[in-house]
């Protein structure tokens, strides 16, 4: 049976490099994708995922197993980093994130998909988390609720509301594409 994240963390605290490598392999890819979906920027996403692990290995790491799972802690660090990135780069831009759209530009071919990507990033934070975790990361409602730290019903209702907003954005995009992507 493979060790739990928390068991790996205990071994990391004792200096076990193999445990760190194992935890990194297990959790980094999803953490990176989560950060990427939130930011739309590969460089920021890589930095954020890296920073989450750096926080974890510091002598004064703030993970406390009594307050939640290690996975939820890592997602929480990334979420906070994304909030900081938004705050520091959105000033004066009427809510439009000014982060560089490198990934959006290079990987997303469809105009509508690109518009959707921007719309996802402009959702209120709680709604954005629900869409990213449930619809883009394909996590269950229960998993997403644990990672965000809220009841399952809240995740579910946020997701449905977010989907209504996104569907409306897409409809609007089909009518007036230039206004939505601007």
């Amino acid at each position: 049976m493979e060790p739990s994240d928390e068991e790996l963390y205990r071994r990391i605290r004792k200096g076990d490099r193999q445990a760190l490598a194992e935890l990194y392999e297990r959790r980094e890819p999803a953490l990176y994708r989560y950060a990427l979906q939130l930011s739309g920027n590969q460089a920021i996403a890589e930095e954020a995922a890296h920073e989450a692990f750096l926080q974890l290995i510091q002598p004064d790491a703030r993970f406390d197993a009594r307050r939640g799972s290690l996975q939820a802690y890592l997602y929480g660090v990334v979420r906070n980093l994304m909030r900081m990135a938004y705050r520091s780069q959105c000033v004066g831009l009427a809510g439009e994130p000014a982060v560089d759209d490198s990934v959006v530009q290079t990987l997303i071919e469809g105009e509508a998909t690109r518009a959707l990507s921007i719309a996802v990033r402009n959702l209120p934070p709680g709604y954005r988390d629900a869409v990213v975790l449930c619809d883009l990361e394909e996590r269950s409602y229960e998993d997403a609720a644990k990672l965000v730290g809220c009841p399952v019903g809240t995740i579910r209702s946020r997701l449905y509301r977010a989907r209504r907003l996104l569907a409306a954005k897409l409809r609007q995009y089909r009518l007036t594409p230039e206004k939505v992507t601007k």
Partner: protein
Amino acid sequence: MSTGNCGEWLDELAECVRRGVGPSGRLSAHLSDCARCGERWEAEWVLSAELRELRMARAGQRSRDVWRRRLMAEFAGLERSSSRSRFRWAWIPASAALLAAASVQVWLGMPGRSVPARISVQSEDIASAGLVDTDEDNGFIPVPYALPLATGESVRIVRRELNGAELVRMGIDLPGAYAADLADDFEADVVVGEDELPRAVQLVSYPDL
């Protein structure tokens, strides 16, 4: 036959599309009765298709080797410095024992021997740091990414009324039951450093649900 009002179908409609399954009998009847919900059904399918595109576009390969190596190097560096510090701390009891032994020797050798030698030990002011130490369950939640307190830096605790949005902006997760409403006001004790920046928060009263 009545097929209910639109509001009661919205969530089921979204859930069917998310799962990629057809509508149940009653929902199907409602969709054929209600043009607005029929449009919404179509819009949900378009949205799901676009979300699938977005998911695939971002699942591209990338090299994690550089980041992995960087992390492992950082970890090795931390380990080295912590072994050094462990080694350094190991000398403290030994030094203290030697110092105590030397003091006793001096005291025994003094002619009057009436006044014992005094050894004054200067310690770092750690009282304030204890408040934001997560190892102790003192009820204070450290503000993520706040600058650490400088040695000897004093802190003060101020009581503030903060709403949920302000707490979230500080990086404090709201208790589950309150997470949905950021407009709620909480009474909180805030630990503030000499630079007036918050370091930790303890919620002392909660809004009525």
